[in-house]
C-alpha cells in the first residue's frame, strides 16, 4: 500500500515535471520581447508576436474573476454558514454540483444566446461572462469546504461576544480561511484560463490589438489552438510559446496566493 502510494506520488510529480519541461523546451526559444509586444506577422514574414492574445487573456481572466469570485464566495458562504442543513441549502449545493458538471462548451452556447446574439457581436464581455460562470461552482464548493474546516468554536466565541452573525462571518471566519479560499480561487482561475471551447462562441479572437469589452478579443488558448493546427513552423513556435506563457500566468497566480496569503493553525 505504502509502495503504491509512493509510486503514485512519484508518477504525478514526474508527470508535472515532464509537461512543464516539454512546454518550456519548445516554448522558451520563442519567448522574446517580440512575443509580448508584437501582433501576429502575416504568413511568411518573420518576427510576429501574440501581444493581443496575452492582453486578451488577462482581460478575460479579470472579467471572469469579477464575476466568479464574489458570486462563488458568496454561494460558498451561504452553503457553509447559512443554508448548511436546510432543504434550500441542499438545493443550492445540488445546483452548484450540476453547474460544475455542465460541459464548458454548453456554457459557451448559453452565453452566445443571451449576450452575443443580443449585442450582435462576439465580445470580451461575453467571453468573461462565460468563464466567470464556469468559475462560480469551483469557487463555491471550495469556499464551502474551507469554511467547514474552521472550528465551530470560533463562531461560537465570536457570537458570544455579542457580534451580529454577518460580522462574525465577514470579519472573523473569512479572514481565518482566507488562504484556503484564495488558493481555491487560483485553482479556479487555472481551470478557466485554459478554456477554449466556450470562447469559440463568445470572445472569438482578434488579430489586432483590441481591449474593447464589446469587441471580439484574442486569448492565448484560442491562439494556441489556431497556431498549433496551422501548417507553418513559425506558427507552431508561437503556439508553444503561448502555452508556456499561459502556464506561467496560471502557476505564478498559485504561487503568489501561497506566498502572500497568511495561513493559520486552528485549534480544534
Amino acid at each position, binding site marked *: 500500500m505504502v509502495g503504491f502510494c509512493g509510486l503514485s506520488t512519484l508518477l504525478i510529480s514526474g508527470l508535472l515535471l515532464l509537461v512543464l519541461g516539454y512546454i518550456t523546451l519548445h516554448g522558451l526559444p520563442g519567448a522574446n520581447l517580440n512575443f509580448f509586444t508584437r501582433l501576429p506577422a502575416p504568413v511568411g514574414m518573420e518576427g510576429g508576436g501574440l501581444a493581443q492574445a496575452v492582453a486578451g487573456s488577462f482581460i478575460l481572466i479579470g472579467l471572469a474573476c469579477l464575476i466568479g469570485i464574489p458570486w462563488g464566495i458568496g454561494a460558498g458562504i451561504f452553503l457553509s454558514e447559512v443554508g*448548511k*442543513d436546510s432543504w434550500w441549502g441542499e438545493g443550492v449545493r445540488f445546483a452548484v454540483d450540476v453547474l460544475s458538471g455542465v460541459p464548458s462548451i454548453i456554457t459557451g452556447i448559453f452565453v452566445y444566446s443571451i449576450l452575443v446574439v443580443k449585442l450582435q457581436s462576439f465580445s470580451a464581455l461575453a467571453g468573461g461572462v462565460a468563464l466567470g460562470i464556469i468559475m462560480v461552482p469551483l469557487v463555491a464548493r471550495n469556499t464551502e469546504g474551507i469554511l467547514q474546516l474552521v*472550528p465551530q*468554536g*470560533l*463562531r*461560537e*466565541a*465570536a*457570537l*458570544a*461576544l*455579542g*457580534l*451580529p452573525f454577518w*460580522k462574525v462571518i465577514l*470579519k*472573523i471566519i473569512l*479572514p*481565518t480561511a*482566507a488562504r484556503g479560499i484564495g488558493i481555491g480561487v487560483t485553482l479556479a482561475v487555472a481551470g478557466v484560463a485554459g478554456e477554449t471551447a466556450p470562447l469559440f462562441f463568445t470572445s472569438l479572437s482578434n488579430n489586432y490589438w483590441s481591449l474593447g469589452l464589446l469587441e471580439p478579443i484574442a486569448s492565448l488558448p484560442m491562439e494556441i489552438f489556431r497556431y498549433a493546427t496551422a501548417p507553418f513552423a513559425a506558427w507552431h513556435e508561437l503556439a508553444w510559446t503561448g502555452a508556456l506563457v499561459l502556464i506561467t500566468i496560471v502557476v505564478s497566480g498559485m504561487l503568489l496566493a501561497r506566498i502572500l496569503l*497568511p495561513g*493559520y*493553525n*486552528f*485549534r480544534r
Partner: protein
Amino acid sequence: MLNSCKLKIAGLQAWYDSRQVLKGFGMEIRANKITAVIGPSGCGKSTFIRCLNRMHEIVPGARVSGSVLLDEQDIYRANPVEIRRRIGMVFQAPNVFPAMSVFENIAAGLSLNGLRNKQKLREVVEKSLAQVGLLEEIGSFIHLPATGLSSGQLQRVCIARALAVQPEVILMDEPCSALDPIASFHIEELLSELKQQYTIVIVTHNMQQAARISDYTVFLSQGDLIEYGSTPTVFINPRDRRTESYITGRSA
C-alpha cells in the same frame, strides 16, 4: 444589592431536535456571586448555561421554552446579539481568533461593533489584560498573534476578551478543563476577584474547584434541577441523596 437576583429562570426546557435535554426547572442566580453548576456528563449543564445567553439556539434543531429574566427583562423577548453583550461566555477550549493579534482579539467585541476610538480601545484592552493578570506577562507581545502563548495564557486572553465587552454576567463552560493545575489555580483566583463586578456562572466537573470558588452550587441530573443552595450546604449537608452520592463520587 447584596444577594439580589441577577437571573431569574422559570420553567426552562431545552431540546435538540426531539431529544429533551432540560426538563423544566426554575432558579434564581444571585448577583456578584459565583454559582457552580455540577452534575454528571450529559445532565444538561452546558445546555443550561447556553440557554442563559441564547447560545443554545444557534445549534440547528435546538429549541428552548420557559423564561430567563435578566434584571426583570426576559432575554427571550430581546435581541439575542444585545443579550450576549450583557451576558458573556467563556468556553472549554481557549478559542482565540487565529487571524488576529492578542490586542485585536481582546478588542474584537468592541471594535467589530463599531468602536473606532483607538485611545479608548487601548484603555479597555489594557484594563482587561490587567484584570486577568496578563498585562505584565505578555504586555510586549500584545500586537503579535496569540500563537506561542501557553493554553493557560490563551484561556486568560479569552476571559479578557469576554470582559472587554463589559458584560454583567459571565458564563463559563468548564474553563479550566484544558488547563494544568497551576493555570487552573490562576483562573480560580481571578474568578474570586471578578465576582466583585460580575455575576459568574461556572460549569465544572471538578468538585474541589466548585467547593473552593463558588458561593452557590446547583446540581443537575438528567435535565432536572436536583438541588440548589449555598455551596457549604450542598457539599456538607445535601438534602438529596443523589447530590450526596454524586459529590462523594459513589455514583450519579
